[in-house]
């Protein structure tokens, strides 16, 4: 049984509760999600090789798309580049920041009555659900939704979807660690021989939160208490972790993201990836059109493009992204491996997961020396 199957019911419960709350407690300055009548009643049209409810001519007339994204600069620019290539008449611009900072920024703007953004991508389900509760997303059901399992869409459908999954195992430098000494299971990251030479991510990372939550669920509190003794160095992005790993500054990283592994392997870095038998921890990357978007047709068109096989192929093969696609008909990743080939671990209960955020931040910050 995969992580998807295990977690569906509880996550849905959470999302349903979220959507109910959205009606009851709209935040000042937020629009209640307006159902786009046109989007729901008009027959979808085919653009390039995907279906859309957006009026492409109007989207081109709007001429712009403003994107807020958690992804790094090169990755964010890469997403925009893919969309612009297919729709050159729509000029794209973006702001990128870590999910926490980005979410805070959009909340501040909207509470001040500013609506400058069309689409937002976050790396953590918790703020996405919170945003949904606050009526931050436009309700738009893409004709491409049929290619996604319900678990990978918001409840109700139409607020956001999983544009990809970022799975992580363990990675090590082959010059510093022999294959015999290399970690094989999650418990091996506790080995004292890696003390002071191991890296992790900062508490702002959605994936780090997922890893902390899942391994704590699986192995108990003691696991991270032991890990605290390893004196791990924490960094902002997956690229920094692999950059240090490739240069030998660290022996292993306790959260080696598969997309970064592919990127660095292609550069000839002496790094190897380990998929522990208990599974890879994984976080969804959430995309949704926001309410009161200044370019509503362009935002719908982008959502359809991103959900489409074409958009997903772009996300999956761009070297700065390499997201694993959750489309049911997704092709393999550049390594020939499909996301579904991995055993993925998600939080069993997304509601409980969201509630432990403060505990995680405090514990993790202290663990990394903050």
């Amino acid at each position: 049984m995969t992580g998807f199957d295990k977690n569906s019911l509880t996550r849905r419960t959470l999302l349903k509760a979220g959507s109910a709350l959205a009606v009851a407690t709209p935040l000042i300055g937020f629009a209640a999600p307006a159902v786009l009548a046109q989007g729901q009643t008009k027959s979808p049209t085919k653009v390039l090789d995907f279906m859309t409810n957006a009026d492409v001519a109007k989207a081109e007339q709007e001429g712009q798309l403003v994107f807020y994204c958690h992804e790094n600069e090169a990755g964010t620019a890469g997403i925009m580049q893919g969309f612009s290539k297919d729709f050159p008449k729509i000029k794209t611009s973006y702001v990128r920041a870590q999910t926490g900072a980005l979410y805070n920024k959009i909340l501040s703007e909207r509470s001040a009555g500013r609506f400058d953004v069309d689409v937002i991508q976050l790396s953590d389900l918790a703020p996405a659900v919170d945003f949904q509760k606050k009526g931050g997303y436009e309700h738009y059901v893409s004709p491409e939704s049929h290619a996604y399992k319900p678990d990978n869409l918001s409840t109700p459908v139409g607020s956001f979807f999983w544009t990809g999954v970022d799975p992580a195992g363990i990675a090590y430098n082959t010059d510093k660690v022999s294959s015999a000494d290399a970690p094989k299971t999650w418990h091996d990251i506790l080995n004292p021989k890696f003390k002071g030479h191991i890296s992790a991510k900062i508490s702002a990372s959605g994936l780090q939160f997922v890893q902390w939550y899942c391994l704590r669920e699986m192995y108990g509190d003691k696991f991270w208490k032991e890990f605290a003794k390893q004196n791990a160095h924490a960094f902002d992005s997956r690229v920094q972790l692999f950059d240090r790993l490739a240069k030998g500054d660290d022996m292993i990283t306790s959260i080696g993201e598969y997309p970064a592994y592919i990127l660095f392997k292609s550069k000839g870095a002496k790094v190897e990836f380990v998929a522990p038998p208990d599974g890879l921890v994984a976080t969804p990357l959430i995309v949704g059109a926001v309410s009161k978007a200044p370019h509503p047709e362009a935002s719908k068109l982008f959502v359809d493009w991103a959900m489409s096989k074409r958009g997903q192929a772009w996300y999956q093969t761009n070297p700065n992204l390499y997201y694993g696609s959750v489309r049911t008909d997704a092709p393999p990743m550049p390594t020939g491996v499909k996301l579904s080939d991995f055993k993925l671990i998600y939080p069993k209960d997304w509601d409980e997961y969201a509630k432990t955020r403060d505990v995680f931040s405090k514990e993790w910050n202290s663990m990394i020396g903050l």
Partner: protein
Amino acid sequence: MPSTGSPLSVQKMAGYGVAAVAAVLVLYPVFYLLQAALDVGDPQVRPPTEYGLDNFSGILQYPQILLNTLTVSVAATVMALVFGFVMAWILARTNVPGRKIFEQLMAVPYYLTPLLGALAWSLLGSPESGFINQVWRAIGGSGAIIDVNTPYGIAWVMALFEGSVAFVMIAAVMKSMDPSLEEASQVMGASRLRTMLRVTLPLVTPGILGAAIFVFAEMLGSFAVALVLGTPNRFYVITTAIYQLTQQYPPKIQTAAAMGVSLFAVMFVMLFLYRRVVKAGSYVTITGKAFRPRVADVGALRYFLLGICVLYLLAAVALPILTLLFASFQKIAVAFPTADNFTLNNFRMAMSMNAARSALGNSLLLGFGTATVGIVLMGLLAWLIYRSRLPGAGAIEYVVMFPQAVPRLVFAFGMMWAWVVFPIPIYGTLWLLLIAYVTVFLPLGVRTIASVMMQIDKSLEECAQMCGASWTFRTRTVTVPLLIPGLVAAWLLLFIASVRELGASILLMGPHSKVITPAIVESWFGTSSELTATLALVQTLVVAAAMVVLVAVTRRIGAQPGD
């Protein structure tokens, strides 16, 4: 012919007008910052629902971070002042060979950006992968002979790249100093060293004190160096801690704001002490007596001084740039290059990214705008604080100092909240960044201009006044011409500071108003150190070209009074 009219009313109007502008620029965001520091309710709900002091008591949970910050800031300030004073004395007061060229080169570390310096020194001096340590091990050594990830390694890099402003501030004062005072000392039999310590040093005390306060505040707010070099060693200072707290979800902005406001208390005390010291003595060196700026002939010692200049610029300019150039042609930066590791892809990518195009153009435009608007506002503020007898002028200094006392990363939150609700839609545009830059650089500009202004004897203005000159006339014909060299230096300083600004921009730039330094930091976070090195080099080249043009223009302006 002197203009007539009511000098008092013009003075008052100008004084209170400029005070009002400064107050709005600073106090408007400060209100929101204080509000956040006292907000103990839901961090995501604005305006706050509950107020209290819990955020301040929460700071005490981070004693190690406070100690780290103090250690690094004090060490870096001392290093920067020593470098700044020695280099300023050599280049402004001695006949060291090639001093004009060295003087121009001294500005280079400042506009290279601390991020570039940190990145380069990280490549050079990291204990494991640092090029110097790789070479050391290759020739038979073991371990690491240099480690820039230690507190003093961090302070060294901060002093080199953040502290070069100390040189600019101290040199500006030294240039305005009558050399006859030093000559008199030597005629009376004092040695060069004794003259430097007993005459030059006391005369430049206001400049040094101003620079010390400014540099210390700069070090307290330093972000990029501590981020690049401190994080790998689990060494956090207040700014990197604030960054982590504001980036996480939900962000702990209230704690960050409380940390920022607490720093202001420290700076308030320092500013108070500075004013006491300055008021206690007379530091006037430009008087009605004419003098021609001259330099001292130091004989053979000049070659030793030349060696110091070369070493300094090697560490702060040549080595970092060459290191980054070397790294930019590699897939994975290593000390010993191989053919299969060579690539031009970093340059291809750098040129195709937004950062290398629109962001760079925006940065240059903003640099020009900030320097030009800033010089007028800050010149008037310096006059208001240090020259006018208007009531409340002293209080304005405290207001002006505030942005320097609070890390720009934190102050930017106050500005964001302030300007996002402002009725005129400037949020997310270059106008907001212009306002932000003028605000955060008020202390830099005012301090630089004030250091020179305080050396101009009031009797010159009073003499003009006695002859019947109005305030506007004597300002135009006496004060400003005497200030021109200082104003030119301040203009260039503001230009450079704006182009390399990071803390405020990273939060305030919008999708259509990107600037270069945050883009480089983003690159460091998310691409690779090799691509980041390339971007930093591209930025350096473009800014260097702009600087060549600007220095040529400003030299002509600066040369006019002596013509």
